[in-house]
């Protein structure tokens, strides 16, 4: 292997700035998309389990549609196709006047995509709650929304915290797809540094280390959340 090491390139002001700004965009895209995903994912996930044919079919269709098309294609459709398909005025606004179009598009695409994955976790969580519990709720005269509010959701929320952790990590990783529509997030910046300096090893190592730190931090947060919300004897080894 013939390679000139030069780690100091990472500390040169210009490249350091690129890394920091890339890191910032990665965090911004991931967290914004996560907020959308949690809300829509929870709604759609619950929607799949309600005893209403129309709602559950629509929610199932949502999940199947968003899960079975690669995120990259979805990203391109939101960015290139949607402005052409909406009413002309709105399309013009999206193309010309919408602030930060790459960022907004990336957040919407990633958020709606991740929502379909979260919806699956939510549905699975609700379906693992023993049916006897909601029957008990019914027997006590609780309404459907009360059964969801007081029985199904609190229990299943705790059940889905571990799978949600991995979704939370995935949203950071998937935010890298924003580079395909021109958003210079962390991966794009490291690639750009590699191209400018020919120090690919250093540039990619820097990005890798940052992603690993994000993953560690996110895991710690979720472990704390899991501990905080655990029902004794219900999930995990403790209890």
């Amino acid at each position, binding site marked *: *292997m*013939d*390679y000139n090491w030069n780690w100091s390139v990472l500390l040169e002001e210009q490249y350091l700035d690129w890394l920091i700004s890339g890191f910032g965009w990665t965090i911004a895209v991931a967290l914004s998309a996560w907020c959308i995903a949690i809300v829509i994912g929870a709604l759609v996930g619950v929607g799949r389990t309600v005893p209403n044919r129309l709602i559950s079919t629509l929610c199932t269709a949502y999940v*199947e*549609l968003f*899960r*079975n*098309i*690669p*995120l*990259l*294609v*979805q990203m*391109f*459709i939101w960015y*290139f*196709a949607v402005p*052409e*398909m909406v*009413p*002309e005025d709105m399309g013009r606004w999206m193309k010309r006047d919408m602030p930060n179009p790459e960022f907004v598009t990336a957040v919407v695409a990633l958020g709606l995509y991740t929502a379909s994955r979260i919806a699956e976790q939510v549905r699975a969580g609700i379906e693992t709650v023993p049916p006897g519990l909601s029957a008990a709720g019914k027997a006590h005269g609780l309404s459907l929304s009360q059964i969801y509010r007081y029985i199904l959701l609190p229990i299943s929320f705790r059940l889905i915290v571990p799978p949600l952790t991995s979704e939370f*990590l995935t949203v*950071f*990783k*998937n*935010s*890298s*797809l924003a*580079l*395909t529509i021109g958003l210079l997030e962390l*991966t794009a910046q*490291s*690639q750009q540094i*590699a191209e400018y300096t020919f120090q*690919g*090893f250093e540039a*990619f190592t820097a*990005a*890798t280390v940052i*992603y*690993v730190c*994000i*993953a*560690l931090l996110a895991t710690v947060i979720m472990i704390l959340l899991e501990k905080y919300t655990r029902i004794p004897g219900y999930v995990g080894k403790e209890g």
Partner: protein
Amino acid sequence: MADFDFNVVWSSLPFLWEGLQLSLWLTFLSIIGGIVLGTLLALARLSGIAPLALLAATYVNLLRSVPLILVIFWFFFLVPLVIGRPIGSFYSALIAFVMFEAAYYSEIMRAGIQSVRKGQVHAGQSTGLGYWQIQRYIVLPQAFRNMIPILVTQGIILFQDTSLVFVVSLRDFMTASSIVARTEGRLVEMYLFAAVVYFIICFSGSMLVRSLKNRMAT
């Protein structure tokens, strides 16, 4: 609404078909390579040999913390450097996918191996079978069988992931669609068509998974 012309899809079908073949071929080879390497990683983690287990765990957790695109960039940079000459973007991509997906397959296979009861290992041991014989004839076949639906699901995800070779301009189905979209100026038609094709393939795949699960449950 602009007027759309889906004839562009029809006229570029041969070109797109070549791209799709590359996508499918890359998926197939990556699944095989990923499962083989992933199984070895899983065995290493469960081997009880501390340094080996730690090494495998570090590899898996590292690869699972970084985005696939970054891994693709890494290997497009590293592979020519390590081998000493460029080996073509298809093989660079293949290596990147195998190394990346192996981390995910190893988690699946680890769960699969752990789903085989310890008594099965004891039964093998009590007839004098050695470690590798027990893995080869008793544990792995059962682990594999128990995990088939999840392995297929991961295969579908992998197929979707192959679209990311777009970032290194390897001419898969996604890149091919994108090339047509730009040269013909038909972005909407081409990306919608790409979405439909991916959807049909992946949705059929998930239907297959569902029927596999049902068959296994009975």
